[in-house]
């Protein structure tokens, strides 16, 4: 099954963040959105990604938006950072999914959906922080890592799961001492993402706790949001509903509030 060596090999092959992206992020961090847009022009794939994203119905624009400075202007500094991290993650995602029944548009939709819902939650919690807003972008890395490590072991895991209720994250931890969220942390480090992002995503696993009450609270909300999204039909069909364990007790005290934010009756 998955070995320490296969984990090391996977981590080693993760590319560092592209130079253009790093520069663009640096401009965004300085609040220089026009400069960031100019810099991003050099990456055609990034341009196409951003154009597709902001023209999704979830952004609600009537006319097509295609100019990069206009796109960055719409997104703002927090939104732009978030979208750039999403783009980095999309570079890591496989061209052909095997373990999960995902494809590029569906994965893209999941990213966009998580971003929007996370913004909604942060607004509700009165939190306005660029890194916290961007933390959600790292979460789908757990899906990409799971796909990469387990795609060759689908039948073995299915056999194991026919006699034992056990999820991929737990299997990985028991085999290697590392779980999918530890792997996300390593990716964040390699991509030089702010440390706070990695901490929040680790807490979103529901397996860990922090001494910091705010980070714990964010971990809870992110954990529940993840399973709220994973309970949607297309993601259930893709096999995302049970690759992680949902810790119902971990989110019990925010459940009612979450349902009210999501306007579920």
């Amino acid at each position, binding site marked *: 099954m998955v070995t320490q060596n296969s984990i090391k090999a996977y981590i080693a092959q993760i590319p560092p963040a592209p130079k253009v992206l790093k520069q663009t992020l640096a401009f965004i961090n300085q609040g220089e959105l026009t400069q960031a847009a100019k810099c991003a022009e050099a990456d055609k794939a990034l341009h196409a990604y951003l154009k597709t994203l902001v023209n999704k119905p979830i952004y609600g624009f009537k006319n097509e938006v295609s100019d990069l400075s206009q796109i960055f202007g719409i997104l703002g500094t927090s939104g732009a950072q978030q979208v750039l991290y999403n783009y980095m993650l999309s570079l890591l995602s496989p061209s052909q999914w095997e373990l999960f029944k995902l494809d590029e548009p569906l994965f893209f939709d999941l990213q966009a959906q998580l971003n929007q819902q996370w913004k909604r939650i942060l607004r509700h919690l009165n939190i306005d922080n660029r890194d916290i807003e961007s933390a959600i972008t790292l979460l789908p890395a757990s899906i990409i890592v799971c796909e990469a490590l387990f795609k060759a072991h689908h039948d073995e895991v299915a056999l194991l799961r026919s*006699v034992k209720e056990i999820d991929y994250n737990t299997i990985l931890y028991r085999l290697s001492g590392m779980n999918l969220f530890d792997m996300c942390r390593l990716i964040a480090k390699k991509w030089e993402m702010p440390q706070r992002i990695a901490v929040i995503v680790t807490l979103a696993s529901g397996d860990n706790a922090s001494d910091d009450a705010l980070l714990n609270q964010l971990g809870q909300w992110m954990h529940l949001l993840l399973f709220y999204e994973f309970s949607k039909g297309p993601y259930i069909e893709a096999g995302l509903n049970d690759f992680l364990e*949902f810790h119902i007790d971990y989110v019990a005290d925010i459940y009612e509030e979450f349902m009210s934010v999501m306007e579920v009756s």
Partner: protein
Amino acid sequence: MRAVVKNRIGIFHPQGFLDGTNVPMLLSLEDIQATEKLDIDMLLVSLKKVIFFNKNGLDVFVKLLSNIRSKLHIVIGFCDYDTKKYQAISKFYENDLNFSLFRTQNIAMLFAATNRDESKKVLVYNPEASQRSSIAIELFDNGHHPVIAQSHKEFEEKKQYADNFDIIVEETFLGLFGQKIATRVRGNAVIYSVSNYLDAEISDSFNIAYHNNSLNVGFRLFIFDAYKVVSMNIHAFNFFAKLASAAAEYNATLCFVGLTFEKTPESFKNDLEDSGIMFFDKMEEILENKELLEELGGSSAAVTKNKRALNKVLVNELPRFIDATVSTIEMMTNAKASKEGASVQDISVDKSSKHIASSIGFYGDIDGMVALSFPHSIAKKTCELLLGEATDSEEEIIDALAEFVNIIGGRVKSLLLEKNINVNITLPRTYTSIDALLQVVEGKKGVQVDLNFDGENFIFFLTR
């Protein structure tokens, strides 16, 4: 989503939010077909990790479970819920609750038709008198000792002394129950609970595959708990006569306990006695009489007459069995297991060694049994992936070992299917000592393969 099967109970484990739009996505056509092929007594949906559900969502599950019940005649329902969820389900299906509700999986196991649990003292409460009685009757049929609280006040009082009970059954509802004959194992005796009118339907409700396998793995005493039988007709009589002659081949004994002959012809009794079936008035006459128990074969699971020879077909498939074992160990430990040697012989184990063992039977195009005997430490290492946190609990290790041989059984089944050999696998059986294993396999010729894992040897034994 596939059901996880343990002790003949299949359980779906959905997570998150369940509504009418997403539940159909949880169960693909392949999932439904795979579920229909399961050899189980009960099919449940666990609500442990479900934070939100509505009636539309549950309706989809109920429809699927009901379809499967009509085909497999099994118990269906939901389990693993809290009070709030129980009240919500009860309200949703106020006038139409025809499935069962079990507060926990452990409670559900008390009601499973094929029950290998020790007899348990159970405190029972349900506000409805008819439910209280139904629950108590089913528990009793499954060999447990129910204590019914007649009022909520009495229940709360008794609950104060929870240590007096092995388990407390509350917020549990028995809907349309399965039509399978309840089966339990006490020591080395298999007890079937039969009731009402015994007629031609007995051949549908009696799990003959389970019975045959019990004979194969060495059970020699089969008791029909017939206190609640009103009468028996000629079809049922023929069924039992055939069962008796099949049992004779294995030197096994069939007994009826508590059967009265007010409405059943006395001649049936004489004829069944001629077939070798014995009749007793009370269960205690057998179970509490050690000498009689030994004489009838219920004190050990040794197979005395059934020394069936290994055949060429089975030996030809030996590499597949060994592959399945070795690859399962490698899959679960990421360590290599190697073959040290193989020979056809009686099982040879150092009786002084502290081994634990597990076996699984298979039947169909070919039949036999695989037994694995491990040193304690190796069993623990082998099952680490299933055990999770480090544990020294013998019970947990034994439990994981049973899951482990179940996985091997699953692999054997699929490897044999590649060669168009169809087999079904039985429930795994575990042994806490070498002596217990030897009682089953001693004197039987088989192929013993010594395997090495992590520097220590363990034994693979394939026999019939």
